[in-house]
């Protein structure tokens, strides 16, 4: 800072005080001075100045934590949200609440870079974090390709590109192998994926879920639903007549439980033929690398003959 020679003692005092305040407020959380900042554009088209190869990174969403680990940068994660549980090693990391963001806990973890999901976190939170000197990079994952791309991007941001590209390549290969396996499938059952059994939250247009079901040799019923995340009506399901219903319904779930909530569904082919399956939600609801495993789980349900039983 250049100090003008004619500065009065009082304003000098003020400047010193302001500098002190600044040091107290954000000195401890500011990225190291020797790490240069580079401007990048995140998935929300915000311009963010991020440090090159940061050492301490923090994710505001479980799916991003999984992406960071997939990108080979797990050792840089210094804290996770209270909703995180994968990979298991994160259970021993410091935790903070992400909804709403516990800013004090985040600041205390002294991250160099924070990753946020555009589906869960709000840009307002990012503004608050930026104000205390913490750069936030938003990642958006809508499709399976986005997910693969986000692994490479996160690898680039965290300086682990070779590992990230290896993971992304192998996930891509796994998806390609799945596509090969189901390419010749003649009968593609119409499949309804539900997020809950009582209130029918589902994946609407533009979701990665439809590509997962298509890769697994099915046809997603809600692929052309005009809302992005609709609550379906009972009659929608009745008229679409899904042949398979898959959902994150919990462990002890069956066609009967679904019928209890939706008594008119006794004619729905999936229920008549007993093709209602419950799957672990994390493989389908978290837009991260485990979606690939989820897609393989789907093929085991839709076309059991195509997958050797374990």
């Amino acid at each position, binding site marked *: 800072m250049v100090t003008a020679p004619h500065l009065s003692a009082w304003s000098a005092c003020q400047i010193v005080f302001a500098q002190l305040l600044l040091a107290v407020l954000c000195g401890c959380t500011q990225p190291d001075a020797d790490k240069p900042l580079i401007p990048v554009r995140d998935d929300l088209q915000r311009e963010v100045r991020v440090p090159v190869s940061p050492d301490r990174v923090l994710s505001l969403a479980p799916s991003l934590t999984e992406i960071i680990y997939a990108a080979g940068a797990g050792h840089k994660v210094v804290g996770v949200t209270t909703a995180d549980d994968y990979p298991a090693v994160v259970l021993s990391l410091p935790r903070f609440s992400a909804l709403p963001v516990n800013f004090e806990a985040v600041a205390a973890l002294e991250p160099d870079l924070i990753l946020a999901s555009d589906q869960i976190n709000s840009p307002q939170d990012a503004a608050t974090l930026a104000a205390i000197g913490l750069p936030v990079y938003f990642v958006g994952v809508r499709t399976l390709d986005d997910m693969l791309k986000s692994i490479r991007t996160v690898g680039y941001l965290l300086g682990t590109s070779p590992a990230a590209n290896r993971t992304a390549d192998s996930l891509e290969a796994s998806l390609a192998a799945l596509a090969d396996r189901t390419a010749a499938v003649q009968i593609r059952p119409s499949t309804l994926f539900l*997020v*809950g059994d*009582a*209130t*029918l*939250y589902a994946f609407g247009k533009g979701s990665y879920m439809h590509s997962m079901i298509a890769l697994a040799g099915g046809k997603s019923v809600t692929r052309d*639903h*005009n*809302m992005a995340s*609709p*609550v*379906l*009506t*009972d*009659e*929608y399901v*009745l*008229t679409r*007549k899904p042949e398979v219903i898959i959902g*994150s319904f919990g462990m002890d779930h069956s066609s009967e439980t679904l019928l209890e909530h939706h*008594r*008119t569904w006794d*004619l729905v082919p999936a229920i008549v033929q007993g093709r209602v399956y419950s799957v672990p939600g994390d493989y389908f609801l978290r837009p991260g690398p485990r979606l690939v495993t989820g897609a393989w789980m789907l093929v085991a349900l839709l076309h059991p003959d195509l997958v050797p039983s374990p």
Partner: protein
Amino acid sequence: MRSAWLVVAGLTVLTVLSVGFAVTVGEDLDRGAVLHVLRYHFTLSSGPPPDPTADRIVWLLRMPRAALAFVVGGGLAIIGAAMQALVRNPLAEPYILGISSGASAGASLFYLGFLPPVLSKTLSMPLAAFCGGLLSITLVYLVARGSTRLSVARLLLAGVAMAALMGSVTSFITFSSPDPDKLRAVLFWLLGSMHHATWSLLPLPAIVTLAGLVTLMSLARSLDAMLLGDEAAHSLGVSVEALKRLLIIVAALVTGTLVAASGAIGFVGLIIPHAVRSFAGVTHRRLLPACFFAGALFLLWADLAARALLPSQELPVGIITALCGVPFFLVLLRRSTYDFG
């Protein structure tokens, strides 16, 4: 007398047409298939059976839904009119004594698993909501009750305070709930929706509402007198304190039952009585039945709009009642020379 019959005939035709229209809105169904289902059921299952999918959609989903909207809308509107007479305040509505917020708190406590297992095993969500509403209004009543008379000002203030208290209970429960799926379900319920209407759910709200309407009609003259003030009503031979207690009991039972059936649907009980007064006058003998039909048809059409606006998607009807009802109400307030009471 002839004009009264004309009105009744007109309302019946309007109701039949509205229900008829309501059962055709939704997923694309052949008009003929809808008619086939209706003909089949109204002729007591004679003739060839209809397409089973259309049958389920029209007869088991859309009909009970329309009927529930009709009952709930009518019930909330008459209770709104009665509450406005009870507290002599145009802002009064069925929820003013904390019933809906109590019911919401009860429902969220139950649904998100915050009740002890002994309780949650014996209760169902509607019952939990009903109990919450009843508990809330009982507390309000106990606070407002004086040694000789029930203070209307205290009733209103205690009601508002209780609504805030129960609201914060609901917020805290939903905020601290660990289960996102159940949380979404509760939020959906809190906004009010007809989507779980079934024939077996219908009799209780229908009977309670009808009983409420009959009771209020028998009190119509006393309600008219209440609008003049406690003392004037007393000098007209109305036992004011007994009437107040009776009104609160009727309001608690009807509103509690309706909220338990469909969630807290707002604005119907506030705007319908005012809207109806501007053309049916303030005498309760005419106001109450008119309110019943206006509220019933309004909610039926609001639910229809909710389904037509976003097909294949459940939209809580509470959003529509405010969205469509309030502008209409404001215009009405502005245009007429309406004066409360």
